């Protein structure tokens, strides 16, 4: 725990996320369709969870982390894959064989793949599974945190609210969820099509959670939110994000939920991201 509490090197996180974005774009050149923009919007959250919040298991033990992470918004899993690759949990060849018959990685995370703790992709499942895990850990007396990343569209699933309510009923303060509030479903802006969806924060709090809203690309702010939690209730960090963050023509443009950039777009995207500073 001590290493987590010491603080978080935000600059190092920025450097990592830049490398991850470049790697995701690189993978995008292998396939015609993938979820670049949804991965970019939650990247800082997922990086923070792996590099700043998850406690490692004892040396040499498997799994590598004592704590758990569920990518409930399964379509954001490229962010998880490139991070797991960086940690050496996934091999470079796994990423090279993404979405091919000889590979083990698809466009949604699959239970059984190294580092993947639940099969997601159908939205509204992660919170229920996480609630069960957090409850089991508590009754077994295991000190483990469960981290979950949800999409905002996923908050339209009734099952997500069933779990949110149940986790609060059970007082599962070992459960920490992040909402990737990028304001987009697959089709359009949430704020335009579903204005009653907002405000999100009040709804989460009304369901018995501790909740904060921060910039979802500001790892330090999210880290502070985690450190300053009351440890009395489950915690929801609502992160306002930009879908397609970092590449101007992808930002807030729904088609990039699915599409891979062509060669010219790829070059432009890399140029916009810039070089990784040493």
């Amino acid at each position, binding site marked *: 725990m001590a290493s987590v509490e010491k603080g978080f090197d935000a600059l190092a996180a920025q450097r990592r996320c830049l490398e991850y974005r470049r790697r995701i774009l690189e993978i995008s050149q292998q396939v015609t369709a993938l979820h670049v923009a949804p991965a970019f919007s939650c990247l800082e959250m997922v990086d923070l969870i792996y590099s700043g919040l998850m406690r490692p298991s004892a040396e040499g033990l498997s799994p590598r982390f004592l704590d758990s992470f569920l990518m409930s918004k399964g379509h954001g899993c490229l962010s998880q894959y490139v991070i797991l690759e960086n940690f050496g949990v996934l091999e470079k060849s796994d990423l090279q064989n993404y979405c091919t018959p000889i590979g083990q990685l698809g466009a949604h995370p699959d*239970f*059984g793949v190294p580092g993947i*703790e*639940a*099969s997601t992709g*159908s939205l*509204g*499942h992660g*919170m*229920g*599974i*996480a*609630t*069960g*895990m*957090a*409850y*089991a*850990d508590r*009754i*077994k007396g*295991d000190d483990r945190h469960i981290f979950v990343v949800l999409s905002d569209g996923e908050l339209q699933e*009734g*099952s997500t609210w*069933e*779990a949110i*309510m*149940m986790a609060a*009923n*059970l007082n599962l303060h070992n459960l920490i969820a992040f909402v990737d509030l990028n304001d987009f479903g697959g089709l359009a802006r949430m704020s335009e099509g579903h204005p009653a969806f907002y405000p999100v924060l009040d709804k989460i709090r009304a369901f018995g959670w501790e909740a904060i809203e921060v910039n979802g690309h500001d790892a330090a702010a999210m880290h502070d939110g985690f450190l300053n939690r009351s440890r009395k209730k489950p915690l929801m960090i609502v992160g306002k994000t930009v879908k397609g963050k970092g590449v101007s023509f992808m930002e807030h443009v729904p088609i990039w939920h699915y599409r891979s950039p062509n060669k010219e777009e790829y070059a432009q995207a890399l140029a916009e991201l810039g070089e990784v500073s040493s």
Partner: protein
Amino acid sequence: MRNTFADTFYEAGTRDKRLAVVVADISPAGSIQKFREDFPDRFVNTGVSEQIMIGMCAGMALRGLRPFAYTIATFTLFRPFEFVRNDLCYQNLPVTVVGIGGGVTYSTLGGTHHAMEDVAVAGAIPNLTILAPCDPDETKAATLWCVEQTRGPVYLRLGKAGEPDFTSIAVDPWEFGKVRYLRNGQDVCIFSYGPIMKLAVELADRFEKSGKSVSLISVHTLKPLDREGISTALAAHKHAIVIEECVPRGGLAGQVKEIAWDQKADCRLDAFSLQDEFIHCYGTHSDLLAAHGLSIESLVQQLKIV
């Protein structure tokens, strides 16, 4: 059946600390209430939230517990169907989904509470084992198997309460994945499962009175189905009959016909199932079955038993 399940589960739960039960606002019958009182940590009531009942079971199983989801069959299987499919079956987790009131057991509650398609629906999902005991003794055996098993998810289909004993003088013991001869005969074989075994027993009695020798077979494990056992029975009898409390497509009857076709069976084969129809009828369980054509009088007439 419900009480036998509860007693068996309670007893196993005192020994095995991995066992937990997750209910969705159903009043715990018999020993489940005792389990709740004695092991409050291992009893969870999600309220009227069936999706999360299944989701939590998945998460608990991922942490090494052996959860049982427990409520009325329509609400353990139909309402949270995609959670059963994705969270339990796709991930192949050892969770038992207990469906109380399979078929039209809840005969006064109307069609919203009838699990007429439960076996067909459950049977379509890869990895899902289906157990459908016919009486309290089989319920005990099936429950104990669920407690110990490591195959993956199970749909344990139960009736309600007060089912009579059909198996204490059975020829065979209960064995997972094997058809079980309750009676051994030469002329007619009757395949059935679940509480409608009552009708199968009555039919066997009528055949025997008419001078026929009858094999009465409990197909308590519907998936994986004992194709070899069914095949052997089809080859050994001149007349085979399936009686099941399930819609006509997707249950046991169709599978027995497939097996018969595959082996070029030359026996006569009759199947009696629920109708492919929502029948608006209230009354006893037998009244509902009769409305679907599943009464002894109807069967005797159709089979021309003298």
